[in-house]
C-alpha cells in the first residue's frame, strides 16, 4: 500500500558557480519522500547530498543557480516560491536537523527560547503556551530534566542532548517532512544509536516523511526504508533499502558497500616470542585548568593508571567513546604532553626521563599519523620539505633526505613530482598518504595513529587502511591505532584496549574481544555499532 509522496523532486539541476570542479552540484536528481518512510541519501563527501536538502528548504546559497527541475510539495513547485512563501513553509511544513548540534544552535540563546522561536516565527500560541509546548517537546525527545534543559544554553548540554534539542525544535510544528543532514556524524556510537532510535520512533508515531542524509552505510542499514545513492551530483542508484544494500546494481554502490569494514575480525596469527617495542606503565594524567588565586580548579582525569605494551610488529587498538582519553594517551606516549606519573619505555630507553636534545634525538623512533589530513600539513610548506624536514633535523644531508622523500612518496603511492607542490593541491586521501610518508621518513620503530582514517570517506579509508597494513608488514612496524570506529579496529588490530573515562577497562586480542566481551562498557560499545544485523529490521 504505497502512500502518495508528499514531496516529489523531479530532474533537479543545481549549477555550481563557474570555476568549480564540476558544472553541477546536483545533476538531474529525482526522488520522492513518502509519509511514514525514511529515505536515506548516501554518497561521498561533495556528492551533492546537502545541496538536495537545502533545496528542499530554499536555503541554497546565492551562488548556486536553480537550473532546472521541480520540487513538488502540496501542489506547488517550491523552486519558484518567493520569500514570503518560504517563510510560511519552513519549519511548519518542512523542518530540518543539521549535522553539528553545537554550531547549529545559537550559543547565546537558551534552549527553551530557541524552541519557542519556532512558534513565534509562525505567530502561533501565546508566549506562555510556547514555553509549555517547548517543555513538552523536550520531554518527548527524552531530554533528562526538561525544566533545566529549557533554561540551559547549548554549551551546557552534551552533544547528544543538543541533537535531541534540535530534533525537538524541528518537530515543534509537526511538519510533514523532516530533513536530517548527517545528524549523527558528530556523535559517538552509543549516542548515535540513541538518536537514530529516537528519529525512527518519532517518525513512525507522527507519520512523517524523512529525508536522512548520511555517508555511513551502517546507519543506512539501521533506519532506511528507501535509499538514494549519489555520485558527483547524479543519482546512480535508488530503491528499497534491502534491495540496494543486499543487491547493489551500480558499481559505485558496490564499491561503497565493499569498502565498509566488516565487524568480523580476520584471523590473525598470534604474535609470540616478540620483543616489546613499547611499554607503558602506570600513566596518569589529570588536566587542571583555571585555578588562580580566586578560582576553583577544574580537573579532568584523562588517563588513569594506563598500562599496556606493544610488541614488535603488533598493532594495538585503542577504542572508546569521545572524551574517554584516547588522544591523551597518544600524546603522552608521544611526549607531546607530560604525564603526572608513569613511564613510557621505547625498547630499553625510558622515554619519559629524557629531555632537550636527547629527547629530540629519540623522537625519531616513534612517529605519529594525525587525524585531520587538512590540519596536519603546514599549508605554507612544500610537500618535499614537509617530509624531509624531520630527517634533516636529525642530521641527514638535505639532498639525501629529499631523495628519500621522493622514494617515500612512491611508497605511499604518490608521484614523485608531488615534492614541489603544496598540500592544498591534494585530496584528503592523498594528504593522509603524505602524512604517512612523513611519519615513515624517520624510519621509526613505532607508529601512533590517532583517528588516522576517521576523516576520510569510506572508500578512501579502505585504501589508506590497506596501505598501512601493507607498510607495517613490509617494514616490521609496531602500531598504536586509535579509533572510535570498532569496525576499523576489528580489521587492523591484533589486540584492542577499550578505554572509558581515562582507564583501560578491557584489553584483549581482537577476535576474543568481539566474540566474548567481558566488561559491560565493551558490550555497550559493540552493541551500538550501526548496521550490524540488517536482517532483524525486516520484521
Amino acid at each position, binding site marked *: 500500500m504505497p502512500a502518495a509522496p508528499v514531496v516529489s523532486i523531479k530532474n533537479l539541476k543545481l549549477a555550481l558557480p563557474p570555476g568549480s570542479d564540476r558544472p553541477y552540484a546536483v545533476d538531474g536528481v529525482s526522488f520522492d519522500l513518502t509519509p511514514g518512510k525514511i529515505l536515506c541519501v548516501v554518497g561521498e563527501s561533495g556528492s551533492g547530498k546537502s545541496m538536495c536538502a537545502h533545496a528542499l528548504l530554499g*536555503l541554497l546559497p546565492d551562488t548556486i543557480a536553480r537550473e532546472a527541475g521541480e520540487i513538488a510539495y502540496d501542489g506547488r513547485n517550491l523552486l519558484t516560491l518567493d520569500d514570503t512563501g518560504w517563510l510560511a513553509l*519552513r519549519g511548519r511544513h518542512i523542518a*530540518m536537523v543539521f549535522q553539528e548540534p553545537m554550531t*547549529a544552535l545559537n550559543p547565546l540563546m537558551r534552549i527553551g527560547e530557541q524552541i519557542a*522561536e519556532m512558534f513565534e516565527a509562525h505567530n502561533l500560541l501565546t508566549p506562555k503556551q510556547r514555553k509549555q509546548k517547548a517543555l513538552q517537546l523536550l520531554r518527548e525527545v527524552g531530554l533528562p530534566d526538561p525544566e533545566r534543559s529549557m533554561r540551559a544554553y547549548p554549551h551546557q548540554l552534551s552533544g547528544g542532548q543538543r541533537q535531541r534539542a534540535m530534533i525537538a*525544535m524541528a518537530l515543534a510544528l509537526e511538519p510533514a517532512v523532516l530533513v536530517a543532514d548527517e545528524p549523527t556524524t558528530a556523535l559517538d556510537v552509543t549516542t548515535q544509536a540513541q538518536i537514530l532510535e529516537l528519529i525512527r520512533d518519532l517518525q513512525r508515531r507522527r507519520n512523517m516523511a524523512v529525508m536522512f542524509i548520511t555517508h555511513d552505510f551502517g546507519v543506512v542499514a539501521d533506519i532506511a526504508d528507501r535509499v538514494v545513492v549519489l555520485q558527483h551530483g547524479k543519482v546512480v542508484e535508488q530503491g528499497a533499502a534491502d534491495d540496494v544494500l543486499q543487491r547493489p546494481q551500480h558499481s559505485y554502490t558496490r564499491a561503497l558497500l565493499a569498502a565498509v569494514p566488516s565487524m568480523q575480525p580476520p584471523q590473525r596469527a598470534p604474535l609470540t616470542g616478540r620483543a616489546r617495542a613499547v611499554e607503558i606503565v602506570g600513566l596518569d594524567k589529570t588536566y587542571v585548568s583555571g585555578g588562580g588565586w580566586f578560582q576553583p580548579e577544574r580537573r579532568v582525569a584523562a588517563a588513569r593508571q594506563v598500562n599496556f605494551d606493544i610488541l614488535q610488529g603488533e598493532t594495538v587498538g585503542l577504542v572508546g567513546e569521545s572524551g574517554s582519553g584516547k588522544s591523551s594517551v597518544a600524546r603522552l606516549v608521544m611526549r607531546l604532553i607530560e604525564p603526572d606519573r608513569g613511564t613510557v619505555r621505547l625498547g630499553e630507553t625510558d622515554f619519559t626521563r629524557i629531555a632537550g636534545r636527547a629527547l629530540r634525538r629519540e623522537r625519531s623512533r616513534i612517529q605519529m599519523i594525525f587525524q585531520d589530513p587538512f590540519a596536519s600539513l603546514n599549508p605554507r610548506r612544500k610537500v618535499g620539505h614537509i617530509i624531509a624536514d624531520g630527517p634533516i633535523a636529525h642530521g641527514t644531508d638535505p639532498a639525501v633526505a629529499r631523495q628519500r622523500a621522493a622514494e617515500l612518496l612512491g611508497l605511499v603511492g604518490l608521484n614523485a613530482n608531488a615534492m614541489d607542490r603544496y598540500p592544498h593541491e591534494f585530496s584528503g586521501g592523498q594528504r593522509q598518504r603524505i602524512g604517512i610518508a612523513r611519519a615513515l621518513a624517520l624510519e621509526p620503530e613505532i607508529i601512533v595513529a590517532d583517528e588516522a582514517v576517521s576523516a576520510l570517506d569510506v572508500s578512501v579509508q579502505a585504501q589508506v587502511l590497506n596501505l598501512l597494513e601493507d607498510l607495517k608488514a613490509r617494514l616490521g612496524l609496531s602500531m598504536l591505532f586509535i579509533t572510535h570506529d570498532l569496525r576499523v579496529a576489528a580489521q587492523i588490530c591484533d589486540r584492542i584496549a577499550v578505554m572509558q573515562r581515562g582507564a583501560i577497562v578491557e584489553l584483549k586480542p581482537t577476535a576474543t574481544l568481539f566474540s566474548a566481551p567481558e566488561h559491560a562498557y565493551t558490550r555497550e560499545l559493540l552493541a551500538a555499532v550501526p548496521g550490524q544485523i540488517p536482517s532483524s529490521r525486516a520484521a
Partner: protein
Amino acid sequence: MLAFIAQRLAKAVVVLLAIVVLNFMLIRMAPGDPAMVMAGEAGASDKIFVTQLREKFGLDQPLPVQLYRYVKGIVTLDLGFSFRQQMPVARLIAERLPATLLLTVTAFVISLLLGVLFGTLAARFAGTWADTAITILALIFYATPLFWVALMAILLFSVAMDWLPSFGYETVGANYTGLAHVLDVGAHLILPATTMGLFFMATYARMTRASMLEVKRHDFVKTARAKGLRDAVIQRRHVLRNALLPVVTLAGLQAGTLVGGAVLTETVFAWPGIGRLMYEALLQRDYNLLLGVFVVCSAMVLAFNLITDLIYRAVDPRIEFAS
C-alpha cells in the same frame, strides 16, 4: 563573579604599581624640572629661589627616596601633592575627572552606536555601493586627523552657523540649574564627543561588518532560517547579537586609545578634563600630578576593560566566571 572581579582588581593593582614605578623613572629622565619651570615663569631665577623650590618639591632628596615616598603614598591611596598648583593631586584630578568621563563615555557610546549601525548596514548590503559608501565614509573620519575634524566642526557649527558653543564645559556665568544645566552641558558636549566618536566609529563599523558576515555563515543562522523566521528577526536576534561579541572585546582594547585621544579633543575644545591636565602637567614637569593622571587614566582603562569583560561575560553564557 565577585571572585572574578576581585582577581581582576588584584591584577590591576599590580599593573598600576608597575605603571607608577616605570613612569616615575621615565618622567625623571626628561630634561628640566618643575623648579626650573617655575623659575622660568617668574622671569627671574637666582640660586636661592630655585633651591627653595627644589626643597619644597622634595626634589633635593635622592631619587630612590623620592620613589619610595611616592610609592608609599600610592599604596595608601595618596596621590601626593602638586606643589605647582598648591593642591593635593587627588583633588585636582577629582575636579577634572567627571568632565573626562562624560566626554569619553559619550564619545564611546556614540562611536559604538554609529559603528554598529553602519557596520550592520554595510554587512546587510555587503558588496553593493551602499557598503562601499559606508566603508569609505567611516574611513574618512578615521583617516582625517582628529584635531582637523575638530577645527572644521568648530568653524562650521560654531562660527558659521552659530549653533553650538566652541569651548568649555558649560556657559560660564549663566548659572543654569536643573534641566537647563543639563541641556547646556549637553550642547557643549556635542561637538567634542561627536568628533571623537566619529574617529572611533570606523573601527567598530569595520569590526561589526566583518563579524556579521562571519556569523552569517554559521549553521545556527541556517537553523533560524529553517524555522521560517523573518530576515529582520534573524539579523537582529541571531546574527547581530553574536556579531557584537568581538566588537565588545575590541571596545575594551580600544579604551587606552580613547582615553589618550581625549588629550587632543580636550585641548581643541577647551574641555576641562584630565587629558589636558596631563599635557599641562607634562609641560610643567609637575611630576606628582603627571604621575597621578597616568595612574588615574590607566585605572580608567582597566575599568573600561573590566566593564567590557563583564559585559562580554554577561552576553556570552559560554564563559563562566569560574573558568
